[in-house]
Protein backbone atom coordinates (compact mmCIF):
# COMPACT_ATOMS: atom_id res chain seq x y z
CA UNK A 1 0.00 0.00 0.00
CA UNK A 2 1.25 3.48 -0.76
CA UNK A 3 1.07 5.57 2.38
CA UNK A 4 2.26 9.04 3.26
CA UNK A 5 4.29 9.65 6.41
CA UNK A 6 4.23 13.23 7.67
CA UNK A 7 7.52 14.24 9.28
CA UNK A 8 7.24 16.88 12.02
CA UNK A 9 9.45 19.96 11.97
CA UNK A 10 11.84 18.85 14.76
CA UNK A 11 12.62 15.60 12.92
CA UNK A 12 12.90 16.95 9.39
CA UNK A 13 16.60 17.55 9.84
CA UNK A 14 17.01 13.78 10.13
CA UNK A 15 14.77 12.97 7.16
CA UNK A 16 16.43 14.83 4.32
CA UNK A 17 14.53 18.01 5.30
CA UNK A 18 11.36 16.55 3.78
CA UNK A 19 7.89 17.36 5.08
CA UNK A 20 6.50 13.99 4.07
CA UNK A 21 7.66 10.72 2.59
CA UNK A 22 5.69 8.28 0.40
CA UNK A 23 6.28 4.63 1.25
CA UNK A 24 4.99 1.14 0.51
CA UNK A 25 3.84 -0.69 3.63
CA UNK A 26 1.09 -2.95 4.96
CA UNK A 27 1.40 -1.97 8.62
CA UNK A 28 2.56 1.04 10.62
CA UNK A 29 5.58 -0.94 11.78
CA UNK A 30 6.59 -1.66 8.20
CA UNK A 31 6.19 1.96 7.21
CA UNK A 32 8.34 3.19 10.09
CA UNK A 33 10.99 0.60 9.47
CA UNK A 34 11.10 1.54 5.77
CA UNK A 35 11.41 5.16 6.85
CA UNK A 36 14.25 4.55 9.31
CA UNK A 37 16.14 2.37 6.89
CA UNK A 38 15.98 5.20 4.37
CA UNK A 39 16.95 7.80 7.02
CA UNK A 40 19.21 6.08 9.53
CA UNK A 41 19.58 9.07 11.82
CA UNK A 42 15.83 9.17 12.41
CA UNK A 43 15.94 5.86 14.21
CA UNK A 44 17.40 7.06 17.49
CA UNK A 45 14.86 9.87 17.58
CA UNK A 46 11.92 7.50 17.14
CA UNK A 47 13.02 4.43 19.07
CA UNK A 48 14.59 3.95 22.50
CA UNK A 49 17.55 1.59 22.94
CA UNK A 50 15.17 -1.24 23.81
CA UNK A 51 13.54 -0.90 20.39
CA UNK A 52 10.28 0.56 21.65
CA UNK A 53 8.79 3.73 20.23
CA UNK A 54 9.87 6.62 22.46
CA UNK A 55 7.23 7.80 24.91
CA UNK A 56 7.37 11.40 23.71
CA UNK A 57 6.66 10.38 20.13
CA UNK A 58 3.13 9.44 19.10
CA UNK A 59 2.13 7.89 15.81
CA UNK A 60 -1.26 8.32 14.20
CA UNK A 61 -2.92 6.64 11.26
CA UNK A 62 -5.12 9.36 9.86
CA UNK A 63 -6.49 10.85 13.10
CA UNK A 64 -6.23 7.75 15.32
CA UNK A 65 -3.44 7.12 17.82
CA UNK A 66 -1.90 3.67 17.13
CA UNK A 67 -1.63 3.07 20.90
CA UNK A 68 -5.41 2.61 20.79
CA UNK A 69 -5.35 0.54 17.58
CA UNK A 70 -2.96 -2.37 17.12
CA UNK A 71 0.22 -0.33 17.71
CA UNK A 72 2.97 -1.37 15.26
CA UNK A 73 0.72 -4.05 13.84
CA UNK A 74 -1.95 -1.52 12.83
CA UNK A 75 -2.76 -2.19 9.18
CA UNK A 76 -2.70 0.68 6.75
CA UNK A 77 -4.75 1.16 3.62
CA UNK A 78 -3.87 2.73 0.30
CA UNK A 79 -3.74 6.49 0.69
CA UNK A 80 -3.59 6.51 4.51
CA UNK A 81 -1.59 9.22 6.21
CA UNK A 82 0.73 8.30 9.06
CA UNK A 83 1.67 11.22 11.31
CA UNK A 84 4.63 11.28 13.67
CA UNK A 85 3.84 13.77 16.44
CA UNK A 86 6.61 14.37 18.99
CA UNK A 87 6.12 16.55 22.04
CA UNK A 88 7.33 20.12 21.70
CA UNK A 89 7.59 22.49 24.61
CA UNK A 90 8.30 25.91 23.14
CA UNK A 91 6.14 28.77 24.24
CA UNK A 92 8.22 31.82 24.81
Amino acid at each position, binding site marked *: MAVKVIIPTPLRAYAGKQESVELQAATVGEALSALTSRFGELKKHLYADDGRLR*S*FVNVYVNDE*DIRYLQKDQTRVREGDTISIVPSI*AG*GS
Partner: protein
Amino acid sequence: MATKTGIPAAPGTEKPAAALSKEEILRYSRHLIMPEVGMEGQLKLKQAKVLAIGTGGLGAPLGLYLAAAGVGRIGLVDFDLVDFTNLQRQILFSTSDVGRPKIEAATDRLRSLNPEIQIDHFETRLTSENALDIMKEYDIVVDGTDNFPTRYLVNDACVLLGKPNVYGSIFRFEGQASIFGAPGGPCYRCLYPEPPPPGLVPSCAEGGVLGVLPGIVGAIQAAETLKLIIGKGEHLIGRLLLFDALAMRFRELKLRKNPDCPVCGAHPTVTKLIDYAEFCGIRGEEAPAPQATVPEITPRDLKSRLDRGDDLFILDVREPHEYQICNLGGHLIPLGDLSRRVSELDSSREIVAHCRSGKRSAEAVEFLRQAGFRKIWNLKGGILAWSDEVDPSVPKY
Protein backbone atom coordinates in the same frame (compact mmCIF):
# COMPACT_ATOMS: atom_id res chain seq x y z
CA MET B 1 -25.57 49.91 38.23
CA ALA B 2 -27.13 46.48 38.33
CA THR B 3 -30.53 47.86 37.44
CA LYS B 4 -29.28 48.88 34.01
CA THR B 5 -28.54 45.31 33.03
CA GLY B 6 -31.74 43.83 34.33
CA ILE B 7 -29.86 41.04 36.10
CA PRO B 8 -31.00 40.96 39.71
CA ALA B 9 -28.89 39.57 42.52
CA ALA B 10 -29.62 35.91 43.07
CA PRO B 11 -31.58 35.48 46.28
CA GLY B 12 -29.49 34.41 49.23
CA THR B 13 -26.13 35.36 47.75
CA GLU B 14 -24.01 37.78 49.75
CA LYS B 15 -22.36 39.47 46.81
CA PRO B 16 -24.59 41.25 44.35
CA ALA B 17 -24.52 39.62 40.89
CA ALA B 18 -21.90 41.17 38.69
CA ALA B 19 -23.20 43.87 36.48
CA LEU B 20 -21.75 45.91 33.69
CA SER B 21 -21.31 49.64 33.95
CA LYS B 22 -22.29 51.90 31.10
CA GLU B 23 -18.61 52.14 30.13
CA GLU B 24 -18.26 48.37 30.11
CA ILE B 25 -21.38 47.96 27.99
CA LEU B 26 -19.84 50.26 25.41
CA ARG B 27 -16.44 48.57 25.64
CA TYR B 28 -17.86 45.07 25.16
CA SER B 29 -20.64 46.00 22.74
CA ARG B 30 -19.31 43.76 19.93
CA HIS B 31 -19.62 40.83 22.32
CA LEU B 32 -22.97 41.91 23.72
CA ILE B 33 -24.68 42.09 20.35
CA MET B 34 -23.81 38.44 19.58
CA PRO B 35 -26.27 35.98 21.10
CA GLU B 36 -23.44 33.46 21.72
CA VAL B 37 -21.89 35.87 24.21
CA GLY B 38 -24.53 38.47 25.03
CA MET B 39 -24.97 39.91 28.51
CA GLU B 40 -24.96 36.48 30.08
CA GLY B 41 -21.62 35.52 28.53
CA GLN B 42 -20.05 38.88 29.23
CA LEU B 43 -20.98 38.64 32.90
CA LYS B 44 -19.44 35.17 33.00
CA LEU B 45 -16.28 36.67 31.54
CA LYS B 46 -16.33 39.41 34.15
CA GLN B 47 -16.61 36.87 36.96
CA ALA B 48 -13.99 34.53 35.47
CA LYS B 49 -10.54 34.02 36.95
CA VAL B 50 -7.84 32.83 34.57
CA LEU B 51 -4.19 32.15 35.35
CA ALA B 52 -1.66 32.57 32.53
CA ILE B 53 1.62 30.78 33.19
CA GLY B 54 4.25 32.62 31.20
CA THR B 55 3.95 36.05 29.57
CA GLY B 56 6.17 35.27 26.59
CA GLY B 57 5.29 34.33 23.03
CA LEU B 58 2.07 32.48 23.90
CA GLY B 59 1.24 34.47 27.03
CA ALA B 60 1.44 37.82 25.24
CA PRO B 61 -1.45 37.44 22.76
CA LEU B 62 -3.33 35.37 25.32
CA GLY B 63 -3.08 38.07 27.99
CA LEU B 64 -4.00 40.83 25.55
CA TYR B 65 -7.09 39.04 24.24
CA LEU B 66 -8.29 37.91 27.67
CA ALA B 67 -7.88 41.43 29.03
CA ALA B 68 -9.54 42.99 26.00
CA ALA B 69 -12.42 40.51 26.23
CA GLY B 70 -13.10 41.52 29.83
CA VAL B 71 -11.98 38.46 31.80
CA GLY B 72 -12.48 39.92 35.26
CA ARG B 73 -9.39 38.58 36.95
CA ILE B 74 -6.20 37.55 35.20
CA GLY B 75 -3.23 36.10 37.05
CA LEU B 76 0.21 36.29 35.45
CA VAL B 77 3.20 34.15 36.41
CA ASP B 78 6.68 34.97 35.10
CA PHE B 79 10.14 35.59 36.54
CA ASP B 80 12.05 36.73 33.48
CA LEU B 81 13.27 40.12 32.26
CA VAL B 82 12.38 41.53 28.84
CA ASP B 83 15.30 41.28 26.41
CA PHE B 84 15.81 42.39 22.82
CA THR B 85 15.35 38.89 21.37
CA ASN B 86 11.82 38.77 22.87
CA LEU B 87 10.52 41.72 20.83
CA GLN B 88 10.32 39.76 17.56
CA ARG B 89 7.21 37.95 18.89
CA GLN B 90 6.29 38.89 22.49
CA ILE B 91 3.84 41.63 21.57
CA LEU B 92 3.09 42.62 25.16
CA PHE B 93 6.44 44.38 25.31
CA SER B 94 7.93 47.51 23.75
CA THR B 95 11.53 48.40 23.08
CA SER B 96 11.42 50.67 26.12
CA ASP B 97 10.56 47.64 28.30
CA VAL B 98 13.89 45.91 27.65
CA GLY B 99 15.51 45.15 31.00
CA ARG B 100 12.24 45.42 32.97
CA PRO B 101 10.68 42.43 34.68
CA LYS B 102 8.18 40.92 32.23
CA ILE B 103 5.54 40.70 34.91
CA GLU B 104 5.76 44.46 35.52
CA ALA B 105 5.69 45.41 31.85
CA ALA B 106 2.85 42.93 31.17
CA THR B 107 0.78 44.21 34.08
CA ASP B 108 1.18 47.83 32.95
CA ARG B 109 0.25 46.95 29.38
CA LEU B 110 -2.85 44.95 30.32
CA ARG B 111 -4.00 47.57 32.83
CA SER B 112 -3.74 50.29 30.22
CA LEU B 113 -5.63 48.10 27.75
CA ASN B 114 -8.44 47.43 30.22
CA PRO B 115 -8.58 49.25 33.56
CA GLU B 116 -11.88 47.53 34.39
CA ILE B 117 -10.23 44.20 35.23
CA GLN B 118 -8.02 42.91 38.03
CA ILE B 119 -4.48 41.77 37.21
CA ASP B 120 -2.70 39.60 39.78
CA HIS B 121 1.01 39.21 39.30
CA PHE B 122 3.29 36.49 40.59
CA GLU B 123 6.92 37.33 39.93
CA THR B 124 8.21 33.85 40.52
CA ARG B 125 9.10 30.65 38.77
CA LEU B 126 6.24 28.15 39.10
CA THR B 127 7.47 25.30 41.32
CA SER B 128 6.10 22.17 42.95
CA GLU B 129 6.06 24.15 46.20
CA ASN B 130 4.03 27.17 45.05
CA ALA B 131 1.96 25.84 42.10
CA LEU B 132 -1.10 24.60 43.97
CA ASP B 133 -1.30 27.76 46.09
CA ILE B 134 -1.06 30.04 43.09
CA MET B 135 -3.41 28.02 40.89
CA LYS B 136 -6.16 27.24 43.38
CA GLU B 137 -7.62 30.76 43.13
CA TYR B 138 -8.39 30.44 39.44
CA ASP B 139 -11.02 28.69 37.31
CA ILE B 140 -8.85 27.99 34.29
CA VAL B 141 -5.09 27.69 33.82
CA VAL B 142 -3.42 28.50 30.52
CA ASP B 143 -0.04 26.92 29.83
CA GLY B 144 2.22 29.31 27.96
CA THR B 145 5.48 27.96 29.37
CA ASP B 146 8.55 27.03 27.38
CA ASN B 147 9.98 23.89 28.93
CA PHE B 148 9.02 20.30 29.69
CA PRO B 149 9.39 20.33 33.51
CA THR B 150 6.95 23.25 33.88
CA ARG B 151 4.51 21.71 31.38
CA TYR B 152 4.33 18.47 33.39
CA LEU B 153 4.06 20.50 36.60
CA VAL B 154 1.15 22.57 35.22
CA ASN B 155 -0.55 19.42 33.97
CA ASP B 156 -0.28 17.50 37.21
CA ALA B 157 -1.31 20.48 39.34
CA CYS B 158 -4.37 21.07 37.11
CA VAL B 159 -5.40 17.41 37.36
CA LEU B 160 -4.93 17.44 41.15
CA LEU B 161 -6.99 20.64 41.46
CA GLY B 162 -9.56 19.61 38.85
CA LYS B 163 -8.97 22.67 36.68
CA PRO B 164 -8.87 22.76 32.89
CA ASN B 165 -5.46 23.44 31.37
CA VAL B 166 -5.57 25.25 28.04
CA TYR B 167 -2.43 24.03 26.34
CA GLY B 168 -0.38 25.48 23.51
CA SER B 169 3.12 24.69 22.33
CA ILE B 170 5.29 25.87 19.47
CA PHE B 171 8.44 25.03 17.54
CA ARG B 172 9.76 26.91 14.50
CA PHE B 173 6.71 26.90 12.19
CA GLU B 174 4.63 24.34 14.01
CA GLY B 175 2.17 24.53 16.88
CA GLN B 176 -0.02 22.28 19.00
CA ALA B 177 -3.09 23.17 21.03
CA SER B 178 -5.55 21.28 23.19
CA ILE B 179 -7.40 21.38 26.49
CA PHE B 180 -6.21 18.99 29.18
CA GLY B 181 -7.59 18.15 32.58
CA ALA B 182 -11.24 18.90 31.76
CA PRO B 183 -13.74 16.59 33.48
CA GLY B 184 -13.66 13.24 31.71
CA GLY B 185 -11.04 14.48 29.24
CA PRO B 186 -7.43 13.43 28.78
CA CYS B 187 -4.42 15.13 30.34
CA TYR B 188 -0.99 15.96 28.95
CA ARG B 189 0.42 12.71 30.32
CA CYS B 190 -2.29 10.75 28.45
CA LEU B 191 -0.80 12.27 25.30
CA TYR B 192 2.86 12.10 26.27
CA PRO B 193 3.51 9.86 29.30
CA GLU B 194 7.13 10.98 29.52
CA PRO B 195 9.25 13.92 28.40
CA PRO B 196 12.11 13.57 25.93
CA PRO B 197 15.58 13.25 27.43
CA PRO B 198 17.34 16.61 27.77
CA GLY B 199 19.06 17.78 24.63
CA LEU B 200 17.08 15.67 22.16
CA VAL B 201 14.39 18.26 21.42
CA PRO B 202 15.71 21.77 20.77
CA SER B 203 14.05 24.76 22.45
CA CYS B 204 12.88 27.90 20.63
CA ALA B 205 16.10 29.58 21.77
CA GLU B 206 18.06 26.90 19.91
CA GLY B 207 15.68 26.12 17.04
CA GLY B 208 14.12 29.49 16.39
CA VAL B 209 10.45 30.36 15.98
CA LEU B 210 8.48 32.33 13.39
CA GLY B 211 7.44 35.48 15.25
CA VAL B 212 3.76 35.23 14.39
CA LEU B 213 3.45 31.53 15.28
CA PRO B 214 3.02 32.06 19.05
CA GLY B 215 0.56 34.81 18.12
CA ILE B 216 -1.63 32.32 16.28
CA VAL B 217 -1.33 29.53 18.85
CA GLY B 218 -1.71 31.92 21.81
CA ALA B 219 -4.82 33.37 20.17
CA ILE B 220 -6.22 29.84 19.80
CA GLN B 221 -5.61 29.32 23.53
CA ALA B 222 -7.40 32.61 24.21
CA ALA B 223 -10.37 31.56 22.06
CA GLU B 224 -10.63 28.21 23.85
CA THR B 225 -10.41 29.93 27.24
CA LEU B 226 -13.18 32.38 26.37
CA LYS B 227 -15.36 29.52 25.04
CA LEU B 228 -14.83 27.52 28.23
CA ILE B 229 -15.92 30.54 30.26
CA ILE B 230 -19.04 31.32 28.27
CA GLY B 231 -19.79 27.62 27.84
CA LYS B 232 -20.35 27.81 24.10
CA GLY B 233 -19.07 25.97 21.06
CA GLU B 234 -16.99 22.82 20.64
CA HIS B 235 -13.90 22.75 22.79
CA LEU B 236 -10.51 21.22 22.06
CA ILE B 237 -11.12 18.60 24.77
CA GLY B 238 -10.02 15.21 23.44
CA ARG B 239 -8.68 16.85 20.28
CA LEU B 240 -5.10 17.76 19.45
CA LEU B 241 -4.92 20.62 17.00
CA LEU B 242 -1.76 20.76 14.90
CA PHE B 243 -0.85 23.88 12.98
CA ASP B 244 1.86 24.21 10.35
CA ALA B 245 2.43 27.85 9.44
CA LEU B 246 4.80 26.98 6.60
CA ALA B 247 2.21 24.83 4.83
CA MET B 248 -0.58 27.01 6.34
CA ARG B 249 -2.49 23.92 7.32
CA PHE B 250 -4.45 22.84 10.37
CA ARG B 251 -4.92 19.17 11.23
CA GLU B 252 -6.74 17.53 14.07
CA LEU B 253 -5.96 14.26 15.86
CA LYS B 254 -8.08 12.32 18.34
CA LEU B 255 -6.83 12.41 21.87
CA ARG B 256 -7.96 9.74 24.27
CA LYS B 257 -7.95 9.54 28.01
CA ASN B 258 -5.47 6.85 29.01
CA PRO B 259 -7.15 4.59 31.59
CA ASP B 260 -3.66 3.76 32.94
CA CYS B 261 -2.52 7.39 33.13
CA PRO B 262 -0.35 7.83 36.25
CA VAL B 263 -2.07 11.13 37.06
CA CYS B 264 -5.65 11.09 35.76
CA GLY B 265 -6.19 7.33 35.27
CA ALA B 266 -8.35 5.01 37.37
CA HIS B 267 -5.48 4.16 39.73
CA PRO B 268 -3.18 7.18 39.80
CA THR B 269 0.35 6.72 41.10
CA VAL B 270 1.14 10.44 41.07
CA THR B 271 -1.08 11.90 43.79
CA LYS B 272 1.00 14.95 44.68
CA LEU B 273 3.44 17.19 42.85
CA ILE B 274 6.86 15.67 42.27
CA ASP B 275 10.33 16.93 41.37
CA TYR B 276 9.80 17.81 37.71
CA ALA B 277 13.44 18.60 36.96
CA GLU B 278 14.29 15.10 38.06
CA PHE B 279 11.32 13.65 36.12
CA CYS B 280 12.64 15.37 33.00
CA GLY B 281 16.19 14.19 33.69
CA ILE B 282 17.42 17.70 34.31
CA ARG B 283 19.54 18.91 37.19
CA GLY B 284 19.90 22.64 37.53
CA GLU B 285 18.29 25.34 35.44
CA GLU B 286 19.04 24.23 31.91
CA ALA B 287 19.72 20.94 30.25
CA PRO B 288 23.41 20.17 30.65
CA ALA B 289 25.51 19.76 27.55
CA PRO B 290 25.19 16.08 26.71
CA GLN B 291 28.72 15.57 25.48
CA ALA B 292 31.74 14.82 27.61
CA THR B 293 34.25 17.60 28.05
CA VAL B 294 36.48 18.13 25.05
CA PRO B 295 39.72 20.15 24.79
CA GLU B 296 38.85 23.85 24.77
CA ILE B 297 40.47 27.14 23.94
CA THR B 298 39.15 30.45 25.28
CA PRO B 299 38.39 33.31 22.87
CA ARG B 300 41.23 35.38 24.39
CA ASP B 301 43.78 32.58 23.97
CA LEU B 302 42.64 32.03 20.39
CA LYS B 303 43.01 35.75 19.68
CA SER B 304 46.53 35.92 21.07
CA ARG B 305 47.59 32.81 19.14
CA LEU B 306 46.16 34.26 15.91
CA ASP B 307 47.86 37.60 16.61
CA ARG B 308 51.11 35.70 17.12
CA GLY B 309 50.69 34.31 13.62
CA ASP B 310 50.18 30.67 14.64
CA ASP B 311 48.86 28.48 11.84
CA LEU B 312 45.37 27.64 13.08
CA PHE B 313 42.56 26.30 10.95
CA ILE B 314 39.19 27.75 12.02
CA LEU B 315 36.31 25.33 11.49
CA ASP B 316 32.78 26.78 11.68
CA VAL B 317 30.17 24.04 12.21
CA ARG B 318 27.09 26.27 12.10
CA GLU B 319 24.54 26.43 9.26
CA PRO B 320 25.10 28.59 6.15
CA HIS B 321 22.31 31.01 7.15
CA GLU B 322 24.08 31.57 10.47
CA TYR B 323 27.39 32.19 8.71
CA GLN B 324 25.62 35.05 6.90
CA ILE B 325 24.72 36.70 10.23
CA CYS B 326 28.33 36.84 11.37
CA ASN B 327 31.48 34.76 11.09
CA LEU B 328 35.12 34.55 12.07
CA GLY B 329 36.21 33.79 8.52
CA GLY B 330 36.34 30.07 9.28
CA HIS B 331 35.84 27.14 6.93
CA LEU B 332 32.12 26.27 7.03
CA ILE B 333 31.05 22.65 7.44
CA PRO B 334 27.67 22.32 9.20
CA LEU B 335 27.75 19.75 12.00
CA GLY B 336 25.26 17.55 10.14
CA ASP B 337 27.57 17.36 7.11
CA LEU B 338 30.79 16.79 9.03
CA SER B 339 30.88 13.00 8.75
CA ARG B 340 30.80 13.03 4.95
CA ARG B 341 33.00 16.13 4.52
CA VAL B 342 35.72 15.16 6.98
CA SER B 343 38.15 14.74 4.06
CA GLU B 344 38.20 18.55 3.71
CA LEU B 345 40.12 18.72 6.99
CA ASP B 346 43.84 18.19 7.48
CA SER B 347 44.51 16.33 10.73
CA SER B 348 48.15 17.45 10.76
CA ARG B 349 47.10 21.08 11.25
CA GLU B 350 45.83 22.61 14.47
CA ILE B 351 42.07 23.06 14.26
CA VAL B 352 39.78 25.25 16.35
CA ALA B 353 36.10 24.43 15.91
CA HIS B 354 33.38 26.89 16.82
CA CYS B 355 29.62 27.40 16.59
CA ARG B 356 27.29 29.96 18.19
CA SER B 357 27.55 28.92 21.83
CA GLY B 358 30.11 26.11 21.84
CA LYS B 359 27.62 23.25 22.10
CA ARG B 360 27.54 21.98 18.52
CA SER B 361 31.27 22.50 18.07
CA ALA B 362 31.90 20.38 21.18
CA GLU B 363 30.06 17.57 19.40
CA ALA B 364 32.16 18.23 16.30
CA VAL B 365 35.39 18.08 18.33
CA GLU B 366 34.28 14.87 19.99
CA PHE B 367 33.44 13.35 16.60
CA LEU B 368 36.74 14.44 15.05
CA ARG B 369 38.75 13.14 18.01
CA GLN B 370 37.11 9.77 17.54
CA ALA B 371 38.01 10.04 13.87
CA GLY B 372 41.67 10.38 14.87
CA PHE B 373 42.16 14.15 14.99
CA ARG B 374 44.44 15.04 17.90
CA LYS B 375 45.24 18.73 17.44
CA ILE B 376 41.71 20.03 17.79
CA TRP B 377 40.06 22.42 20.26
CA ASN B 378 36.59 23.74 20.87
CA LEU B 379 36.19 27.51 21.07
CA LYS B 380 34.75 27.93 24.55
CA GLY B 381 31.44 29.81 24.50
CA GLY B 382 31.45 30.03 20.70
CA ILE B 383 30.97 33.17 18.68
CA LEU B 384 28.89 34.64 21.54
CA ALA B 385 31.91 34.53 23.86
CA TRP B 386 34.15 35.83 21.06
CA SER B 387 31.83 38.85 20.81
CA ASP B 388 31.90 39.36 24.60
CA GLU B 389 35.60 38.86 25.17
CA VAL B 390 37.43 39.73 21.98
CA ASP B 391 35.48 41.60 19.33
CA PRO B 392 32.23 43.34 20.33
CA SER B 393 31.64 44.33 16.70
CA VAL B 394 30.63 40.71 16.01
CA PRO B 395 26.83 40.68 16.48
CA LYS B 396 25.23 38.25 18.89
CA TYR B 397 22.10 36.36 17.88
